[in-house]
């Protein structure tokens, strides 16, 4: 005899999760959905009002910013795990996504068993996402593939998202001793059909593939040229316009490679800003941080690498702090992973 459960069937599958931030009329942002299933765990602390209200641009910034921590049981991803998270930001909302410590990828016995992490984010017009996580840390003998797909409705909506990876447990001598690591970041737009534009269009694809292919005959560790951290920061939209400009300007202001100091370019009186810039550039040099920023198809795409994890972490924090708009619009919490 078939037993019919009186309870509704659980919609969520293992590793699946869903976050929806919506605006409760007239202007209260709420977490409408927050569901997850083992091994994924989502934790949402109370939303906070943004610390600095910047009314100067006349934007309708929401009164509260929601934060969700993306966690996994055991603090990492075990071979064969598959995580699939769907996020939706409705019009006029803001969301901060964080991690709690680096995403550790644990050893797999079988190189063909690839652990997978997928995140699909839909960003409605006039909403903004900040995703500045800790880096992914694939241990030796791991196979991992992740994808972050962002859909911007009508090419609107703002993004400031970072994706970075480290060489493993450097304290244990691990140095890119992985089987395979793939990370895909894509931004798509769903266009207006009436105007005759195609329904969806790829705006940006940043796909990193680290595996044994390429016919280089050069081991992965050497291919990385001594760097143990690589990262990409993707910035787009009106909310982050000032931040975008800041990165491009600072890149322009970097000293020329191979340039000589003839002693005639030193201005005796540096403004505090120039002094901070000089100090930061000095720290970049000490920490072996190299980076570039480029205006690409309406994005500012920042690539960075450093010898040690802390080098990149500190650099990113310095840059975001110096510019200040994220802290103002999203609060201190947004940069929690960079501390």
């Amino acid at each position: 005899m078939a037993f019919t459960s009186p309870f509704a069937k659980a919609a969520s599958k293992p590793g699946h999760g869903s976050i929806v931030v919506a605006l409760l009329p007239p202007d209260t942002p709420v977490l409408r959905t927050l569901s997850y299933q083992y091994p994924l765990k989502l934790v949402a602390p109370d939303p906070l009002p943004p610390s600095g209200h910047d009314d100067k641009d006349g934007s309708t910034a929401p009164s509260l910013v929601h934060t969700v921590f993306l966690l996994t049981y055991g603090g990492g991803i075990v071979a064969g795990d598959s995580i699939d998270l769907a996020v939706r930001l409705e019009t006029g909302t803001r969301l901060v996504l964080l991690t709690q410590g680096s995403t550790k990828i644990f050893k797999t016995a079988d190189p063909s068993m690839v652990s997978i992490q997928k995140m699909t984010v839909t960003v409605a017009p006039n909403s903004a996402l900040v995703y500045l996580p800790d880096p992914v840390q694939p241990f030796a003998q791991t196979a991992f593939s992740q994808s972050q797909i962002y859909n911007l409705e009508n090419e609107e909506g703002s993004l400031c998202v970072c994706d970075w990876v480290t060489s493993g447990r450097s304290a244990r001598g691990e140095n890119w001793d992985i089987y395979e690591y793939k990370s895909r970041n894509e931004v798509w737009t769903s266009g207006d059909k009436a105007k005759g534009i195609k329904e969806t269009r790829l705006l940006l694809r940043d796909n990193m593939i680290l595996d044994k292919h390429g016919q280089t005959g050069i081991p992965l560790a050497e291919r990385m040229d001594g760097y143990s951290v690589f990262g990409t920061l993707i910035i787009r939209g009106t909310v982050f316009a000032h931040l975008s400009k800041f990165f491009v300007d600072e890149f322009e202001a970097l000293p020329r490679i191979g340039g000589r100091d003839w002693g005639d370019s030193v201005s005796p009186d540096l403004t505090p800003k120039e002094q901070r810039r000089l100090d930061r550039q000095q720290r970049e040099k000490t920490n072996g941080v190299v980076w570039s920023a480029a205006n690409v198809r309406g994005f500012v795409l920042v690539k960075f690498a450093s010898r040690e994890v802390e080098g990149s972490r500190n650099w990113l924090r310095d840059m975001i702090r110096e510019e200040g708009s994220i802290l103002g619009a999203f609060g201190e919490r947004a940069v929690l992973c960079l501390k």
Partner: protein
Amino acid sequence: MSTTDSDQQSLKDEIADLERRLQDAKSRLSPSDAIETLPTLANDAALHALFLLSDSALPLGSFAFSSGLESYLAHHRPSPPSASQVPSFYAFLRLSLSTLASTALPYVLAGYRSPEDIETLDNDFDASTPCTVARRASIAQGRALLTVWDRSFKTQYAGSTTANGRSETEGKAHTSAVEILTSFSKDLRTSSHLNAHLAPLWGVVTNVLSVPLRDSAYLFLFSHARTVISAAVRASVMGPYQAQSVLAGAELQKRIRGLVEEGWNKKVEDAGQSVPVMDLWVGRHEKLYSRIFNS
């Protein structure tokens, strides 16, 4: 897939071997009047097109770019400064080829196989090229290739649908590929969405010129190697004779062949950067104090 590929390959090898033996037997039969068999016209035409595209006089402007070599050398100053940069150059050449194969080669193959997708391929390649320096180089060369097509190749290759020993269906596909190129080139002048990147256009143009796909892919990678090596000569890393010997080397041949095989079935969605630091070298080229190359 790979088994059929290797089956096909072994069949091809067998045919080549049989032909060689036939030639050999014929020449032994009567050495005085050995019958020289003429290859078919289609092969001739493809070879002719291959020569055109591999000519370093083809005005693509490739000489203006170093594909990041100049920046790489600036980031790897030898110590002492008089030490040879040649070993460091070899590493760069390998990494550069690997990057090109993982990022651009899938678009060459896709452009050749489905010319009708050229606009999407062009857009997606543009979306996947993260730094402005690499993108300028790719667009400059792509537009140059399109100009060469328009001004030089079109009159010769556009008309003849069933010429060069093509069957009727092949003729139709050829005509539509020509039309696609023509309309792409026309739209480029008015549309803000089109860019004309080299990789997908290389695929379409070599298709129209009836160059076999494998040869087209091989030449794409080979041309890149030649560009980088020629840049090394101009950057005083090595002399012209050493450069030719690198270019002629069995190692380079094996590498290019391997990369074509590796990428043969790779989808454009899975194209990506296999040497992340390359983006930094190329991107930071703009920050060099002195430069002799555009990129």
